[in-house]
């Protein structure tokens, strides 16, 4: 503490060689993740548990209950599958979305506005990209836990119709990453609780209408285009394709959609955090 200390990074800086991302990234997102893990363990364990059981309740009531009345449903590819097997992958994608959104919106909003957590983080050698990546990664980790649990339930109920279902796990992560990154970007621009409510206002209809509980073909053509522009529809179709084994190259479009979402979300989050805390 008392002696002058020259860290390797100082020496590198003295040589006049700025790093790739300049002041944005210190390569230490894992410390932000580790912080979130500790905090969740001690204070938010119950919230985590509720996020896990919620989609399972939906699956049991609608898939098994309602499903006995409905019987078989046609997928986009034209195959006929039991109703529970039709909505289970959609619920999985929704669970990923909800988990990611919870972590990246309400949690982030609170930390920015009230806890001043990011202000403290950015006074250290961390950069805004470290904070963004760390928070989003934690949301993903949680999404992965939910998804794995849900997949096990699906397996037990015989709703995974193909070995392709294994790829649904990384697919769900991709979906969660997309929502977390856009969710955090949007949240970083919000200032009041009222604005935060808009997020729910967008999410609920998206959950209900994104071909979650019935095939897209029930809509007239015009509405189909609208639904197909929304992110959740891509997630639902991607995961459904994998768990029902209806795999074709068209699924890659859904993957591409999420890659774009991730890139755009990270870009705006980093830019906004920099403007807010390193102005």
């Amino acid at each position: 503490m008392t002696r002058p200390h020259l860290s390797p990074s100082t020496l590198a800086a003295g040589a006049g060689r700025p790093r790739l991302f300049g002041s944005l990234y210190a390569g230490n997102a894992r410390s932000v993740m580790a912080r979130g893990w500790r905090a969740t363990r001690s204070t938010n364990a119950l919230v985590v548990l509720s996020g896990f059981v919620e989609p399972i309740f939906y699956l049991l009531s609608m898939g098994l209950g309602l499903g006995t009345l409905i019987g078989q449903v046609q997928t986009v590819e034209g195959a006929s599958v039991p109703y529970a097997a039709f909505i289970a992958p959609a619920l999985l994608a929704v669970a990923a979305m909800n988990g990611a959104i919870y972590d990246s919106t309400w949690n982030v909003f609170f930390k920015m506005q009230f806890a001043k957590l990011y202000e403290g983080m950015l006074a250290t050698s961390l950069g805004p990209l470290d904070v963004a990546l760390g928070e989003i990664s934690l949301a993903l980790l949680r999404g992965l836990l939910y998804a794995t649990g849900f997949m096990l339930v699906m397996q037990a109920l015989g709703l995974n119709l193909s070995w392709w279902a294994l790829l649904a796990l990384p697919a769900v992560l991709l979906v969660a990453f997309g929502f977390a990154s856009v969710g955090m970007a949007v949240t970083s621009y919000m200032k009041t609780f009222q604005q935060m409510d808009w997020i729910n206002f967008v999410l609920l209809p998206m959950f209900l209408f994104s071909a979650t509980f019935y095939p897209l073909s029930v809509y007239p053509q015009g509405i189909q285009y609208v639904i197909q522009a929304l992110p959740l529809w891509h997630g639902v179709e991607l995961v459904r394709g994998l768990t029902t084994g209806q795999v074709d190259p068209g699924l890659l479009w859904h993957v591409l959609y999420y890659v774009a979402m991730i890139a755009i979300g990270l870009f705006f989050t980093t830019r906004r955090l920099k403007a807010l805390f390193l102005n």
Partner: protein
Amino acid sequence: MPEPVIVAQNLVKRYQDFVAVDGISFEVAPGESFGLLGPNGAGKSTTMRMIGAVSTRTSGKLSVLGLDPNGYGPEIRSQLGVVPQENNLDMELRVRENLMVYGRYFGLPHARVARRADELLEFAQLEDKATAKVDDLSGGMKRRLTIARALINDLRMLLLDEPTTGLDPQARHILWDRLFRLKEQGTTLLVTTHYMDEAEQLCDRLVVVDKGRIMAEGSPADLIRRYSSREVLEVRFGSTQNAEVAGRIQGFGERVDVLPDRILVYSDSGENELERMTAAGLRPITSLVRRSSLEDVFLRLTGRNLIE
């Protein structure tokens, strides 16, 4: 002379509609304890944020630890300890966890952070609070934890933004004692404050800042000698009488300041002035002779009280 740890030349920070820092220049030597003294809104915190590499300057030159904060934010921040004006402790973590997690933000190895955390808990007199919730700590304890947290890395300089604002007198004295120890160990301190006594306790040298500009610079004793007198006599005649009496005491001491609630007489001996006053037939309701302080310097320089 060793290379200064801070060199600011004509430093300016302008927001859309106002100028927070308006061309200030100063240098801080290693091991020095340097203060920015001024009222709220004088530009102290903004200056601190620019030095802490979390705010970019509008113009002027700034070098912190030999580096330009515009290009080397993370490098500079890795060698600073920062105590912000408001505690931003992590309320979701326990006391010791706050130190551990913060150390990891600097990318320091776990074992070293753990060792350091225990040393700092002792330094901050919080050993028996290691597993307590942050919310359950008193204001003074939270402040000490924030300072302990700022010391977790291998810092070369500690930035303290109003370290004791809002604390009760006892908590302030404990805190000053801790900061004084750091100073004795040779830690460079940069302190902003609007408390005179704090500046006199902690700062080797300071600048008086008002409206984004430097009004004066020197050691506390130096500034008092230059802009005030050795002692000050404070007398009150009651708010209705003050103005009337004022005319009759012009010429007392080196200088007289008439404030709404009291009259200040600057002099080498406050007692002598009080005797003269009594001899002249003036009977103040209350009188107080005290040492001159930075408060008087500020009043002299700006014509205003420091805390309104």
